[in-house]
């Protein structure tokens, strides 16, 4: 049964005219975004253009771009899939991802905009010894972004093999490589300006795609949500428990702890994600940064409400076996839903499938570009210009370094992307959130609000949080020892949880405090006065 329907799906993708349609839609998006990129590239003259898009975007534009950056393959494919397979437990992702924005809104976005310039490291290192803190900030920026990239690459591989019927490993790697090359082009040519426009286009497409599917699901159930839920519960074979907490995480005390760990990572991770933080530099003032967050909360909130309809809709209309047969982690539930809503045997099904997949592909490309920009900016501005060249690099040299770093990061993510195919992309992104919450958030908050905080504290916190989070993931079932691990054939795991947040986040905060209290370093009071006044008033911000 399951393999039969899986083949129907592949056949729908393989039928030549539909395949042509899919490839055409992809090509149109790629061509349009490349045009934008070239146009933006021509206007990218100095470092502020490349890193911060010239700081001329409005709050609304940036809010749209922030949502574009945030609603990644994890949100669209991963959450819909998690809800389709595990019902209510998949919903936690949506809630955590959304509530997390309040941390960014209340504590981080405006001070960051006021006191930093291009990177997260600008704020972390503001009143500290520049070289060690910038090195640490650069390292954690790159690690967080690569975790996140891994998830997007996994999504791209899954999507394309589903759509184009490419099942050979070479074919999938070819697609991942194509994504990698495109993102290198977007970032090296278009910089922040091009990337921001690409995010906006993508956010609009994604919202339209999700609205369309949500509308079709609701029409199918005559706008009766209770019916939709009831049918999802019946069709899942799990009954009422499908709508209750616990299906994925309720099995044992350990999985419950994992759920708590995930919840913490989600809610504290957003405000430490470098690719989100640097978006606040693209607007002229802190007030505009605040407006971007408010817009983002509205757009992202509505989008996550729609993922409920998508996930439960997929659960109601598609047999769970079929979802699992298509992708073990459920990542293809949303495109499958499109196919079923249009009609598996009708042309409409294939058209809808192609459209939604093109949207998902656009999503991945845009997010990947944002992530690459964040890491190459941090490499060039924090590590190359301020550490290697000790602040004496010319702007031209610095931007050259950023472009080369883009190529390097693109290559790394292509290599890693091939390893992560069967992991749920939402789960993978949650790891990036855990690392961000452990390594970045403590130092951001301490730097801004704790007078006594010192360089030693910052280093302890960043490296301690980073090493703890990444180390625990390495020895978790995500990497080895499980059916869906990255390396299922070996087992060197000893940490029982998939998400390290519950340990690594407190460790990050604690080490920041301990490092500060143990060091004999006297905090630079003048620098703190500067940072505090600037971060709250915007004096000297540009």
């Amino acid at each position, binding site marked *: 049964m399951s393999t039969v329907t899986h083949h129907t799906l592949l056949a729908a993708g393989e039928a030549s005219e539909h395949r042509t349609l899919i490839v055409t839609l992809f090509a149109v998006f790629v061509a349009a975004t490349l045009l934008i990129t070239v146009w933006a590239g021509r206007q990218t003259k100095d470092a502020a253009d490349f890193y911060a898009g010239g700081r001329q975007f409005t709050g609304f534009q940036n809010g749209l771009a922030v949502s574009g950056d945030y609603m990644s393959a994890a949100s669209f494919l991963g959450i819909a899939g998690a809800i389709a397979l595990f019902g209510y437990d998949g919903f936690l992702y949506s809630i955590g991802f959304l509530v997390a924005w309040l941390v960014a809104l209340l504590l981080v976005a405006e001070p960051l905009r006021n006191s930093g310039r291009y990177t997260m490291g600008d704020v972390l290192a503001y009143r500290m010894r520049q070289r060690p803190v910038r090195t640490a900030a650069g390292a954690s920026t790159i690690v967080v972004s690569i975790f996140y990239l891994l998830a997007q690459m996994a999504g791209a591989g899954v999507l394309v093999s589903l759509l184009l019927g490419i099942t050979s490993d070479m074919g999938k790697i070819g697609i991942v490589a194509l994504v990698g090359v495109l993102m290198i082009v977007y970032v090296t040519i278009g910089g922040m300006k091009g990337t921001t426009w690409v995010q906006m286009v993508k956010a609009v497409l994604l919202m339209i795609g999700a609205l369309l599917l949500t509308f079709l699901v609701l029409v199918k159930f005559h706008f009766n949500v209770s019916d939709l839920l009831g049918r999802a519960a019946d069709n899942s074979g799990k009954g009422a428990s499908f709508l209750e907490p616990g299906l994925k995480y309720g099995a044992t005390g350990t999985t419950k702890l994992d759920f708590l760990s995930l919840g913490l990572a989600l809610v504290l991770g957003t405000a430490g994600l470098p690719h989100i933080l640097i978006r606040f530099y693209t607007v002229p003032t802190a007030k505009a940064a605040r407006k971007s*967050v408010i817009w983002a909360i509205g757009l992202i909130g509505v989008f996550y409400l729609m993922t409920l309809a998508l996930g439960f809709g997929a659960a109601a209309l598609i047999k769970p076996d079929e979802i699992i047969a298509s992708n073990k982690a459920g990542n293809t539930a949303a495109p499958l839903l499109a196919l079923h809503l249009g009609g598996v045997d009708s042309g409409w099904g294939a058209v809808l499938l192609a459209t939604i997949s093109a949207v998902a592909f656009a999503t991945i490309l845009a997010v990947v570009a944002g992530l690459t920009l964040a890491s190459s900016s941090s490499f060039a501005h924090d590590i190359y210009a301020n550490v290697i060249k000790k602040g004496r690099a010319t702007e031209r040299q610095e931007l050259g370094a950023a472009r080369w770093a883009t190529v390097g990061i693109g290559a790394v993510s292509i290599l890693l992307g091939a390893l992560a195919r069967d992991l749920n992309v939402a789960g993978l992104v949650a790891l990036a959130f855990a690392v961000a919450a452990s390594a970045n958030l403590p130092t951001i908050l301490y730097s801004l609000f704790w007078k006594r905080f010192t360089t030693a504290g910052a280093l302890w916190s960043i490296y301690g949080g980073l090493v703890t989070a990444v180390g625990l993931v390495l020895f978790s079932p995500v990497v080895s020892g499980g059916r869906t691990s990255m390396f299922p054939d070996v087992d060197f795991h000893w940490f029982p949880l998939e998400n390290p947040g519950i340990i690594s986040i407190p460790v990050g905060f604690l080490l920041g405090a301990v490092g500060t209290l143990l060091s004999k370093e006297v905090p630079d009071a003048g620098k703190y006065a500067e940072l505090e006044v600037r971060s709250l008033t915007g004096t000297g911000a540009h």
Partner: protein
Amino acid sequence: MATETPPPATPGVPLPTTEEFTEVQQSAEFGELRRAHRSFAFPLTLAFIAWYLLYVLLSNYADGFMGTRVVGNVNVALVLGLAQFLTTFLIAWWYARHAAAKLDPRAKAIKSRMEGAE
């Protein structure tokens, strides 16, 4: 101890001196701005994180309660989940209002005085 590179500053526009910053930081006016921000943002952050964790803990350890039907197939878990959305929207709106009324005018006054004093 000392920083090795100068802090970010607008090219061409000199930043106020450290002494000026320190003086403003110690001033009553800035103290009010800081208090207006912290007394709003800090407790609210603790509150929404506690409310979110309560929801996560209830999901984990109170499945009986969370599974209680409210209307049709809609149960308490779903209602509380949607309530998280609602509170997030409300807090965002509330902060925007607070910032416009209590933070922006004070910040603007200090900023224009400091930059105008050059």
